[in-house]
Structure formats: structure tokens, C-alpha cells
């Protein structure tokens, strides 16, 4: 009897391990399909208020490896030259007027609206999250992700994946309390060239911001080799020169 229990427990443990490994492998694949290891891109952020008023921002960004991303605002004029940098859990904001980088957190928002810094300075999901559970659905998979580290904006994510292209079509982001913070919808899959086929629009809404919507529109996503030194505080006022 004891042998049977041990075998059953081992079997359960093994199957859980296989699922976890599979989930994390799928997550890595999703990360690579969303963007290459090292690349540049332009993004337009659009915040829409309940009365229809909207505000737009345009950013140029470069990303290297799993956890380094740097951006600079190109418009509007009031934000031009503002730079953001993320290295793993560390985030900084450079404001030309202030003249020096200051530390910011993933929960803040440099643009206002529903997107926070974590959404705007998104690094690879697999560098921040472990897959705890995987389910198969009609469209593909649902991954239940838990944060590896303490300094993340969302404690858990539920990622809905289309298995045709291994791209997400929806992510639900939850706080540690289990409260739904926001939904991210990945739309308009587009071929950016050089093998990069990914959603060109991310739409978000949040029960915390009823009536508000925000969009990120992607353009000119291109592979690019980048020096690691670009991702440093001393380089933050020079990011626009990379264009």
C-alpha cells in the first residue's frame, strides 16, 4: 500500500513538473514571438477618458536581452526628451528639466492613464514570472503565472495564448490580494518583417479606471544589435541619438 502511495505521489509530482516545464517553455516561446532578443521599436500610447478626451504619446524604445529596455518620448512637446530605463527590477526616469535620473517603480505611470511603467517598460514575461499551471483551451493554452520576484506590478497573470502563432490574445493581471487590476488585449497581428509577426495593438481596461481605455500601437519593430552600455543612467539623455 505504501509503495502504491509513493508511486502515485511521484507520478503526480512528475506530471506537475512536466506541465510546469511545458508552461515555462511556452512562455519563452511567447516572449520570443512578441519580440526578438535585441530590437528597436516605435510606440504610440493613447489614453482615452470616459468623455472621449484622448492624449497621445510617441516613444522610441530599444530592448536587449531579457531584462533591459530604454525609451525616450518623442511627443508631445511637453514630454519630449523624457527617458525611461529598466534593468531587471530597477527603473529610472530622466526628465530633461530635472537633469538627472530618478528611481521610479513599476506601479507608477509616467504617462498617466491605465498603463503603468511595468506595461510600458515590459521585459520578457519569463524573466519575471513562473508558470504554475497550464490548461488547454479551444484556441490554445491558458497559462497561470506567478511572479518570481517581489518588485513586480502584478503578483499573478493569466495569459490566454493562441496556439497557431504562440501569441497571447488576452492577459488578466491580478494583485497579490487576488483582485483583478487590468485586462490587456493583444490585437491586429501584423508582419513587421524579418520574421517578426506580432500583435500591433495592445488595448487595456481596468476595473479600477472605469470608463478609461488605453492603447499601445507598435510600429517599425526591427531587430537591432545594441551595446549593453546604452542601458545605463549615464546614457539616458542620449537615447534619442540612437534613432
Amino acid at each position: 500500500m505504501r509503495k502504491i502511495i509513493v508511486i502515485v505521489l511521484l507520478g503526480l509530482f512528475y506530471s506537475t513538473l512536466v506541465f510546469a516545464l511545458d508552461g515555462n517553455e511556452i512562455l519563452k516561446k511567447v516572449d520570443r514571438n512578441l519580440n526578438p532578443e535585441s530590437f528597436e521599436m516605435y510606440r504610440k500610447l493613447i489614453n482615452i477618458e470616459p468623455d472621449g478626451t484622448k492624449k497621445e504619446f510617441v516613444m522610441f524604445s530599444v530592448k536587449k536581452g531579457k531584462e533591459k529596455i530604454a525609451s525616450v518620448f518623442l511627443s508631445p512637446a511637453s514630454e519630449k526628451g523624457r527617458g525611461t530605463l529598466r534593468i531587471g527590477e530597477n527603473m529610472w526616469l530622466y526628465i530633461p528639466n530635472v537633469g538627472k535620473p530618478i528611481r521610479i517603480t513599476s506601479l507608477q505611470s509616467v504617462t498617466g492613464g491605465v498603463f503603468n511603467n511595468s506595461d510600458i517598460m515590459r521585459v520578457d514575461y519569463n524573466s519575471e514570472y513562473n508558470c504554475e499551471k497550464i490548461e488547454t483551451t479551444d484556441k490554445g493554452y491558458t497559462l497561470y503565472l506567478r511572479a518570481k520576484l517581489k518588485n513586480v506590478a502584478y503578483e499573478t497573470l493569466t495569459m490566454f495564448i493562441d496556439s497557431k502563432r504562440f501569441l497571447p490574445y488576452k492577459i488578466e493581471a491580478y494583485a497579490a490580494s487576488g483582485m483583478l487590476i487590468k485586462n490587456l488585449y493583444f490585437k491586429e497581428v501584423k508582419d513587421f518583417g524579418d520574421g517578426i509577426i506580432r500583435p500591433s495593438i495592445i488595448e487595456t481596461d481596468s476595473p479600477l479606471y472605469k470608463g478609461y481605455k488605453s492603447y499601445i500601437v507598435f510600429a517599425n519593430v526591427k531587430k537591432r544589435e545594441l551595446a549593453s552600455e546604452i542601458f545605463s543612467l549615464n546614457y539616458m539623455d542620449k537615447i534619442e541619438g540612437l534613432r
Partner: protein
Amino acid sequence: MRLVCLVFTIWVTIVFFNPLPLFSQDTDNGLTDLNLDFKIEELEKKPYSINADIETTETIRFLDQDALLFKQKYLNKKNEDVTWQTDLDLIVEAQYQQGSIKLYGRFNGLFYYNDDESFESQRKAEEAYVSFQPSFSLAIDAGKKVHKWGKGYAFSPSAFFARPKDLDDPDATLEGYYSVSADYIKSMEGIVRTVAVTPIFMPVTRDLNHEIGSKDELIWGGKVYVLAYDTDVDLMFSISDNLTNRVGFDFSKNLTPSFEVHGDAAWVKDYRQYIIDAAGNVSEQEDTVFNLLLGIRYLSSQDTTYIFEYYRNGQGYTDWEYEQYLTLIENGFDQYINTSSQTLISKSKTYAAHYNQQAAMKNYLYLKISQKDPFDILYFVPAITFIYNMDDKSASITPQLTYTPVTNFTIDLKTGFLLGESKTEYGEKINTAKVVLSMRYYF
């Protein structure tokens, strides 16, 4: 004249900034007009760029005719309880990049009117430098440039090569000094992620940086930045033949996603301080002094940001020393009233640049609380700032409302109240309160 100033401010805002059409452009009642097309001019890189912002400001000061600094400045020759000032400030920022060479300039033109000076104008190049970037690891800058070192928000004891911040507006642009500096950056994997070295050379001559010292010399120094254990650390120093030598360090770290700690420390060697007593006698002290700043930044789940800092100003005056200075002004005013002699008042004015500067004493607490988007009003930020002088227990309280109703247009309403007993720093300032309304348009 007051009415003219106010009308002028509003007129400039409406006629030149014309926010209403912009407001209507930014409004739609559905998502059908969403411009998701990315063929926009931002994608086309030009070698040059020019940006500007124009700001009009109306400042109303409520004067305290019993305050000692009022008496020092005006004696008994001013009867108004309120003064008005209208500012029109234009900042133009331009840059040109060709290959590894970048030219950058930021120019400020200020035109203002107040009761004391009538119409005046100022113009200056806040920054104007050339930058040579032969590689991603190296940049060399020469010209007039701001070097803001240190992690403090309101105070920067380790900003050895920068002008002091304005405590009323720590985020305001500063004017740089002429210097030659370099940045060498090395990134790596592991515990130490980044190391950067910044040497700097600053000449002082009759024509360059003459505000710093009266003798020709070359001040030099450097900063070493390290990102290790998810902590920013800087070590810095400055060396001078005729002025003080300094060494310092700073740090900044996020302990949690919403809680940051930071600090600056600096030792100033052979700092020479002139102390004037109530009779106008001046004594000189020379010692190595220690400046310290410790601070936190906390973001609550309700999007309220708290910035709290303690500042130990080793170069500041003690409670007794500052009281002696204020008593000298009091004695000087009595002397003027009784004898028409300005001897003592003139003596006090000789050292006013030191004693009347912001944070002139030893120990300060700074707290700023700001709330993002309250009452579901996007781009609206109310804030309140407290500055507390721990030595004489005087204080400044500044509520502020900032609103960006449309893209590129910001309205800022700030009120300031000064609290303190007689012969305290904030209790003896020229005004007891002020209201500042400013409107800024970026283009």
C-alpha cells in the same frame, strides 16, 4: 497696474496659447476616430530639433512690514502690503546631431514687471555645449552644461559642480557652468551591472564661471557610479587650489516596488564661514564640515506620493548665529530710525547673500505629498509641501494644484505660507504668504 498685470496674463494665455481649439481637437465621442496609423512625423528622424515652452506667471506677495528682512531691504520706504509681479518666460531648446557630434543649447529669455523694478528683461544660455560620442561607452562634453549630482530631491549636498536648487521648485531647470567632462560607461553581467566614470574640469577665469571664485584656477573632480545589488551608488570629489575640496557619496535603492530610500553625504574641507554678530563684528571660522541628506519616496496604493527628506547642512548657521544676524538688522533699523545712519544695516547687507539664502541654517525636514488624478480627474495633481527648520522651529507650507487640461498646456496654482516666531528664518522673511499662478504652453 495690478489689474493690467492680471489681464495681461490671461490675455497672453487665451490669445497665444489658445487652448480651447486644442481641447476640442482632443475630444471625440467614440473610438472610431482613433488614429492607429503610425505614418507620423515622429518616425522620421531629422538631424536637428527645436522645442520651446512659454510661461506666463502672476505672483502676488503679501508683505510683512514688521519682518526684519523687509526692514533690511526697504527700511521704512515702502508702504504697500501687497506686491505683484508678472513674468513672461520663454525657453528654447535646440539640438543638432551629425554622426558622433551633437550640439545642444537651451536658452532662456525672461521679461517681467514688478512694482520695484518696473519692466526688466533677462536672457541667458542655460546650457550650450558640444558632445562628442565616439562610441556607446564614451562621451566627451565641452561647454556650458548642468551637472546635477546627488540623489536628493529638494537638497543636493553632493552636487559639487552645480548651482543650488530652488527649494520652491526643485524640478526647475538650472543654469550650468562652463566645463569639459567625459562619461565612460562599462556594463557587465553579475552583481555589478554598471560602472561609469565621469571626470570633470571647470576653469574659473574673469570670463568663465566667475561666480564661483575671484582667482583664476582650474577646479577638477570626478564621479564614479556603480549599480550593484540593485542599488545606485556614486562616489564623487572636487579639488580646488583656492576654494574648498570636497568628497562625497550618494545612494538610491528601491526596497519594495513602492518604497525608495536615498541619501547624500559630503565632507567639505577647510570650509570658511563668516559670522556676524548683533553689533556688526565679523569673525571667521574654518573647519571641515559634514553635509548629510537622508530621504524616502513612497507611493501608496491610492497613488499618493510622499517624498520625505532630512537635511543636515554643515555649512549652515546655528540658531544662535542666525539670531545674532537678525538682531543686527533690528539694531540697524533702530539706528536708521533714530539717527538716519545705515551703518549697521549696510553691514548686514554685506552678508545677506549667505544668511538670506534658502536653507541657511543647520537642520531641515522636507515633506512633499502629491496625489495623482484624484476624483477621477486625469492629469490633475494636487500637492502640498512642508519645509521645517528644526533649529528655530519655523516652517513653510506650500499647497499646489497642477492641471494639464489639454496636451502641451499646464496650469499651476501655488500658494505659500511662512510660519515662525520673531527672529526665526521663516518668521522674518519679507512676505508672509504668496500666490503664484502660472500657465505654460509647450510647442
